[in-house]
């Protein structure tokens, strides 16, 4: 369908307005209230409302405050029909249809309305027409494309046949819901039956196992019974065997008892032999003892006598020794006295000599002491010693030197006698030929008597020398005065005397020392007095002047004699002691021996008595005989024992015992097993009886019936469920496949357009109802409802445009945009213009807008400017060129 032209008369605020549409895109511009929306409304009313309609939408089309009928006239082409259709409502109602092609036709009233509807219905999809019509304010909603048959036809050749199939699907779903949940799980009776069958199966299995168990008990009972029979037979056999074995064992026991008796017999015989042998041995012992005791007594006697002799001998020897010792003791005492006397004489003689020597010594000592005392006295007075003399001499020498020094400085006089004339010098005659020389220190008077007298006087001597001389002289004088001498010589002489006195003193002291040693003189005197006193006290003859040596010899001899005798006495004494010891020992031995002897005699008596007594009981001979008889009896008993033992061994007691034990154990084992079997049989019988009471068969039958009934129900129900599940699955699968088939081209087309607007990676998800579920852009998928208003509006528009492009061009309807894309930004708008331009090539697009800018860039658009002032004036609409966008400014005039 293509609209060619629309004329409004008295329609809303429009007195008359005519707009001609291009084949592609027509943009109807104009400010609000100039009647743009009226065009869309008029298009709707003329095709759906009869001229008789009194509906609100019709009444509101009447201009306010007037009583004229609103009128619309359209010229259009649709499916080969070329026609003009005119309708007026409310006042002077009319409907007029003029068909020019394919065959002229002219109709009015109801006929015209019906015919127009008929043509429209056959040539255009009314649902599409509505879907593509974007009313103001509804631009955000997606069109209801699923109901558009034309679109379905475009997308898929199949007929949607929506109503009946929805009902079918609803029945299938309802049936499915009886058996399954939304998630495909079993539910309701089907689910219950599963549980019931499982429970009943378990019950059957339980009862079957009880039944099997009872059968097993029964089978075991039979087995045990035959086992019991077998065991009973075995027990009988074992018991018989045991009896035989016991008999053999009893025989062995008899043999063993016999052997034991023989052994006891043998032991008794042995014991008796031992006894009689012991008696015999005792007797022999007694006899032997008697003879031994007899010998002992004799030996004791001999020995006793020997000991007595020895004792006597020892006592005699002791006595002799004692006498010798006594004699020696007396002699020894005399010799001692003689020795003392001799020594005494010697001592006196020595003391006398001592006394004389001491007296002489004392005499000498006294002399020396005297001398010493004299020298000491001298020395006390002679104080000048050699040292002082030396100091004095040195001073004098200094004086001489000082004088000589002074003299050397003074004039010298030399006088020599030449002839005979005596010459005196200072009165001293000068021998002829002699010469006198001297220094003139004082007035020297020389005279040759009668001839001449000469005085030489000294000049003035040098003062220094004089002073030194004076000092030296003074020093000498002082020293002399100190020493109380007049000259050095005198001093020297006094010093010599002192030396002599000193020597004497030393000599005397040395003599004293030699004589007395360390002793004082007094001591020597006391010694002497003591010695003298000793001599006087001595008993010796005072006048005995025998030489010391002889006296000494005599003393020596006396002493030696004494010592010899002492030694002899010691020897004798020792001997006495020894002999005494020996004698005592001999006495002890003797006493002992005699005691032994006595004892031996007594024992002998006892032995003799005992033997006599024993012999009274049994004679020696009878004892011997008894021994021999006992030996014979023992041999016999041993033989009997050997016989019995060998008989026992031949009976093989081990084997017999083992056989018996085995038989006993066999019997016990069979009895045990029999008892166990019997117990088990009782137990089994009880178990079986217990089970028998339960009526397992009946229970099992009931359970099986219930189980089979439930299983049959389950089977039936499961079959029904499987059937509906398969049916539903198949139906749904095919429905989805069909939807996929027609959704795909729609989506492709929508995406093709969308890529222009949104970008190359624009993608959408389309539901089977052909609504956009979500948009994917730059990898982000956003549900349609969550998109911005602008995007929603744009995608909704794209959906319409895609539909318009998709439907067959013969069936297509114009896309009418009434003031839409108010949410789009300029960039998107520009791109949408491109898309609209493209769609315009295959479908008619009519855009009603008060915003010329929005659709200004649609290249192929025809622009129609509605002038507000020309609201009522017909034919005022301006038709722009195809590039109307460029001349838009001019269109406003």
């Amino acid at each position: 369908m293509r609209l060619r032209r629309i004329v409004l008369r008295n329609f809303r605020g429009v007195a008359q307005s005519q707009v001609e549409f291009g084949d592609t895109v027509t943009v109807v511009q104009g400010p609000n209230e100039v009647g743009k929306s009226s065009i869309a409304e008029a298009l709707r009313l003329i095709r759906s409302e009869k001229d008789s309609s009194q509906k609100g939408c019709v009444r509101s089309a009447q201009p306010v405050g007037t009583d004229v009928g609103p009128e619309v006239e359209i010229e259009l082409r649709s499916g080969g029909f070329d026609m003009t259709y005119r309708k007026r409502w409310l006042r002077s109602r009319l409907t007029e249809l003029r068909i020019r092609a394919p065959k002229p036709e002219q109709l009015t009233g109801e006929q015209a309305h019906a015919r127009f509807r008929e043509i429209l219905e056959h040539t255009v999809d009314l649902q599409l027409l509505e879907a593509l019509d974007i009313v103001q304010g509804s631009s955000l909603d997606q069109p209801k494309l699923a109901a558009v048959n034309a679109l379905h036809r475009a997308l898929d050749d199949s007929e949607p046949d929506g109503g009946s199939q929805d009902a079918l699907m609803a029945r299938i779903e309802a049936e499915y819901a009886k058996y399954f949940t939304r998630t495909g799980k079993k539910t309701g009776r089907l689910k219950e039956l599963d549980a019931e069958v499982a429970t009943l199966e378990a019950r059957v299995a339980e009862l079957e196992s009880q039944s099997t168990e009872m059968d097993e008990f029964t089978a075991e009972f039979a087995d045990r019974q035959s086992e019991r029979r077998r065991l009973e037979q075995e027990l009988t056999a074992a018991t018989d065997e045991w009896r035989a074995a016991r008999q053999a064992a009893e025989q062995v026991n008899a043999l063993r008892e016999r052997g034991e008796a023989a052994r006891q017999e043998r032991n008794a015989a042995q014991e008796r032999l031992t006894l009689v042998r012991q008696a015999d041995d005792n007797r022999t012992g007694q006899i032997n003892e008697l003879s031994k005791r007899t010998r002992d007594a004799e030996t004791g006697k001999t020995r006793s006598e020997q000991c007595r002799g020895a004792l006597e001998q020892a006592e005699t020897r002791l006595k002799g020794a004692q006498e010798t010792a006594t004699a020696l003791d007396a002699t020894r005492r005399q010799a001692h006295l003689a020795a003392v006397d001799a020594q005494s004489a010697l001592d006196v003689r020595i003391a006398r000599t001592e006394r004389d020597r001491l007296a002489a010594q004392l005499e000498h000592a006294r002399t020396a002491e005297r001398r010493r005392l004299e020298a000491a006295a001298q020395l006390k007075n002679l104080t000048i010693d050699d040292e002082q003399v030396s100091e004095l001499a040195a001073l004098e020498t200094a004086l001489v030197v000082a004088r000589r020094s002074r003299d050397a400085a003074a004039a010298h006089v030399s006088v020599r006698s030449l002839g005979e004339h005596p010459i005196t010098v200072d009165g001293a005659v000068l021998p002829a030929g002699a010469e006198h020389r001297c220094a003139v220190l004082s007035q020297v008077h020389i005279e040759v008597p009668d001839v001449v007298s000469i005085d030489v006087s000294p000049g003035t001597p040098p003062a220094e020398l004089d002073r030194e001389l004076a000092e030296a002289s003074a020093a000498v004088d002082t020293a002399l005065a100190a020493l109380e001498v007049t000259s050095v010589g005198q001093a020297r002489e006094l010093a010599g005397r002192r030396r002599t006195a000193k020597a004497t003193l030393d000599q005397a002291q040395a003599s004293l020392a030699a004589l007395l040693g360390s002793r004082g003189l007094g001591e020597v005197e006391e010694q002497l007095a003591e010695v003298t006193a000793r001599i006087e006290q001595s008993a010796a003859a005072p006048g005995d002047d025998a030489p010391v040596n002889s006296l000494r010899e005599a003393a020596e001899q006396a002493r030696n004699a004494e010592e010899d005798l002492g030694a002899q006495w010691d020897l004798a004494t020792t001997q006495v002691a020894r002999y005494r010891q020996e004698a005592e020992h001999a006495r002890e031995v003797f006493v002992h021996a005699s005691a032994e002897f006595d004892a031996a005699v007594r024992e002998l008596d006892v032995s003799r008595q005992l033997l006599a007594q024993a012999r009274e009981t049994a004679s020696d001979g009878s004892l011997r005989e008894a021994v021999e008889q006992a030996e014979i009896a023992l041999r016999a008993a041993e033989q009997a024992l050997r016989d019995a033992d060998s008989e026992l061994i031949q009976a093989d007691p081990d084997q017999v015992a083992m056989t018996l034990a085995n038989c006993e154990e066999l019997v016990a084992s069979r009895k045990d097993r029999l008892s166990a079997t019997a117990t088990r049989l009782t137990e089994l019988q009880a178990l079986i009886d217990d089970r028998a009471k339960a009526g397992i068969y009946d229970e099992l039958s009931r359970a099986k019936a219930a189980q089979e009934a439930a299983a049959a129900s389950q089977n039936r129900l499961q079959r029904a469920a499987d059937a509906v599940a398969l049916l539903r699955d198949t139906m749904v699968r095919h429905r989805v496949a069909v939807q996929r088939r027609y959704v795909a081209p729609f989506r492709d087309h929508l995406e093709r357009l969308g890529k222009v607007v949104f970008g190359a990676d624009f993608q959408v998800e389309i539901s089977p109802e052909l609504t956009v579920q979500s948009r994917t852009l730059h990898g982000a998928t956003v549900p349609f409802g969550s998109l911005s208003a602008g995007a929603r509006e744009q995608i909704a528009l794209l959906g319409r445009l895609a539909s318009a492009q998709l439907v067959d061009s013969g069936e297509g309807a114009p896309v009418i945009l009434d003031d839409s894309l108010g949410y789009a930004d300029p960039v998107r708008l520009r791109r949408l213009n491109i898309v609209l331009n493209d769609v315009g090539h295959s479908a008619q697009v009519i855009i009603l807008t008060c915003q010329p800018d929005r659709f200004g860039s649609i290249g192929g658009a025809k622009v129609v400017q509605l002038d507000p002032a020309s609201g009522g004036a017909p034919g005022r609409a301006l038709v722009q060129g195809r590039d109307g966008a460029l001349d838009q400014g001019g269109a406003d005039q």
Partner: protein
Amino acid sequence: MRFVASADWQLGMTAHYLDDDARPRFQRARLDAVRRLGELATERDAEFVVVCGDVFESNQLDRAIVAQTFEVLRGFSVPVVLLPGNHDALDAASIYDSPAFATSPRQVHVLRDSHVFEVVPGAQLVGAPWFSKSPQTDLVAQACAPLGPTPPGIVRVLVGHGAVSTLNPDREAPDTIDVAGLRAALDAGRADVVVLGDRHSTIEVDERVWYCGTPEVTARREVDPGNALVIDVDPDTRALSVEKVHIGRWAFLTVEETLASRADVDELAARLDRIASKDTTAVWLALSGTLDTAAKAHLDDLVDRAGDLFAKLDYWRREMHLAVLPDENDFADLELSGFAREALDELVSTATSPGPQAGHAQDALGLLYRFAGGEA
């Protein structure tokens, strides 16, 4: 000397495969059959009744069955001799040794060994009772071995239980009853006739060797159940006559049909309808062929309705080879289009291909047919 021989009473047996209401009736029916045996014995002036083993279904039965049995047997005017078989062997769990059995009616006897038992003057019974579920020998031969020739004027009957060598597929089994040996013993005059239990159908093994069969059916595989034998032996001539008398009331049927159309289903319905005594009849349907979805729905409806009349009416699953496929016309009127059409095509394809899913797909098609409005 006339007597009634029976076997395999299987008293206490239940049939879990029957419907809930039929099950107790069936259980009671076994005792009713026994009662009729007693009546038969009276009617025919039989001297005694002998039962050749498996009197009771199990030694594990609720002992209440013993009292119920005795209650019936008290009505017998002649002695009843019971032989323990493999189901009620004389083992430790034996029902014959239960306290309940201590108060047995005076006319009831149990053959607990193979000694000659003179049940009535002139009639000797030699039994081969079972002592366990699996004897390791031919019990009948063993019971027969010590027997001498039957005394003159005396009728001797061998009473046994188990599989005979001529019928037993497992001839090597140690407990197989050797028929040749039996013939030899009969020829030697050690017995006049052998009556056996174990096979629930009445079978003449030899003119002197008979399986009595169960008096009331126990399983659908049984060929000739529900009989008793009335046996006449002339003690002087040794002449033998055996008469098979049907006394059973229940029937287990297997109905085999090949179905190809709705008409065939109607044919089957008529066939079922002709069956008398439906409440004592169990029917297993072994159907094959191919039905369209609509016909199958018709069949299911039929089975549902008829099931209420019979003691049991059901498909014999193992023997069912019936394919249900949508007919070209089935869905034609439903105007399925689009994906529903595609789904239908797929299901049809699955349903007609061999595979485990074919059955499911057939069921699913049935559903679709119903939901899409094809159901009448």
